[in-house]
């Protein structure tokens, strides 16, 4: 069963942000928004917040821990070899730990992002409207089968009032994630 969405297409970021504010204030549930570039005001209005930086921090801690454990095990526990008069457990670890922290955190963050968004190299992009990566701003409102005609009319007229260029109704693409964060 495929769901139908009402899609409002805007071409100006300020008009779009005002529209999102107005539509949200009128009590209509906004399912999703798509923008060619991030508009902070829209995130603010919709209360969208990403937890990705928290994961990056955790990955960083894991990276630094694993790297230190590896260095400690190789150069202190398993094969202690003095060179240059330096202590075994020494400052020379720090640069490797620093670089590995960045490496592990970046790589795992990317992987988390790819998995959560179900994207990856070679996969065909699933888009509700390809123009959203060009110059159009989209607002997506789910059309419930239980909705009355008046309600749908109210939504479409509101989208039109707030300055939308066009209003489309489209089935949701297969394999499409509702939450986009």
């Amino acid at each position: 069963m495929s769901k139908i969405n009402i899609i409002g297409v805007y071409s100006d970021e300020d008009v779009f942000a005002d529209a999102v504010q107005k539509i949200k204030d009128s009590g209509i549930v906004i399912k999703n928004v798509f923008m060619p570039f991030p508009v902070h005001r829209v995130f603010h209005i919709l209360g969208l917040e990403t937890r990705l930086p928290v994961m990056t921090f955790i990955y960083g801690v894991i990276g630094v821990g694993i790297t230190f454990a590896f260095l400690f095990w190789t150069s202190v526990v398993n094969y202690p070899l003095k060179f240059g008069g330096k202590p075994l457990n020494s400052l020379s670890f720090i640069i490797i730990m620093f670089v590995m922290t960045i490496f592990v955190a970046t790589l795992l963050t990317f992987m988390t992002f790819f998995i959560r968004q179900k994207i990856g190299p070679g996969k065909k992009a699933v888009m509700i409207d390809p123009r959203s990566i060009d110059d159009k701003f989209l607002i997506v409102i789910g059309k419930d089968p239980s909705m009355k005609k008046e309600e749908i009319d109210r939504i479409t007229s509101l989208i039109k009032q707030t300055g939308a260029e066009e209003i489309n109704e489209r089935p949701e693409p297969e394999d499409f994630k509702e939450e986009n964060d």
Partner: protein
Amino acid sequence: MDKQVTLSSRFKILTVVLILIGVAALVTGAFTDSPRFWANLLLNNYYFLTVAIGATFWLAIQYVSGSGWSAGFLRIPMAMGTFIPVAAITMLPILFGAGHIYHWAHHDALLDPVIAHKAPYLNMPFFVARYILFFAAWILIALLLLRYSRKEDEKGGLDYFHKAQFLSKVYIFVLAVSFSLSAFDWIMSIDVHWFSTIFAVRNFAMAFFHGTVIVTLIVIILNKLGYLPFLNPSHLRDFSKYILVLSMIWTYMWFAQYILIWYANIPEETVYYLPRTKGEFKPFFYAELIINFLIPFIPLLSGKLGSRIKILVPICIALIIGQWIDLYQQIFPGTIHHFKIGFIEVGSFIGFLGLFSLVVGWSLSRTPLIPRRHPYLKECTEHQRV
């Protein structure tokens, strides 16, 4: 909006009392322990000079990057820039007493082959010439930036903004050369046999770091006093981002200098770190790193904590002490050779703090606090960030 800062008589009396404490401390030093007098004079002068330089550099960055969020606060670094001429005067005794601080300025220093080799650069006439040149450049540009901003208040338009933008670019280039050489002149030449090529960058990072910290602190204080009513958590978050990033840059430079010397283990270089890491100065070696790196870094990783005044103010105050420790570590092992902290150190710092507050407060009270015709002012007063 056009509120002007008025200095309360309590503030004036307090700063004058602080200055008197400083004078008392320096006089005590001059008569009881003259090397410490000279070392403290250099430390405190350089401390507040770097703060002023760092703040004006921060100002230049705001102009060059075309930042809107900070437009309403620009008068504060401008006021801090007016301390540079004062520092030029209070630092004058060092020119006359250079022999007490710098080994190379002794009359018999040229017997030392290393110093004789460096003599074409490190000699008194050239030293004085550089002093005059650097201060002249900094004072000229810092005061010109203030003047442009005042003119902008009167006339409006974009002319003065573009002029200030251009001058800021010039200032950044001028600082890159002049501040590096001044750090070599005034601080690195204390340990005249030793040199480090990253020394200037490390000092520059320190100046930028702590200049920004003091700007943040003054903004918060003015807000608490009822000025700058538009200050909101988003501004504070941007200030805390500056502090976070600069703490990392400072640590990076500090560590780059340390680890290369530690790793190469060349006696000419390690001699610098020997008293600092093994001797009496060891506690300060760790305190420096903890205060200047861990204290701002860990809490400010979370942007939410950084937008709270109750978190940001203690961090700023800790960093004021942190910079003092940083400079103490750079100056005292080479001049005094012993770990000494007493009334002379604390008192003279308090005295210079009073002088700095008085000068900055006075120049804040001379101009309207908000550059009301700055083109980005509206962006600043309505700055909101998720």
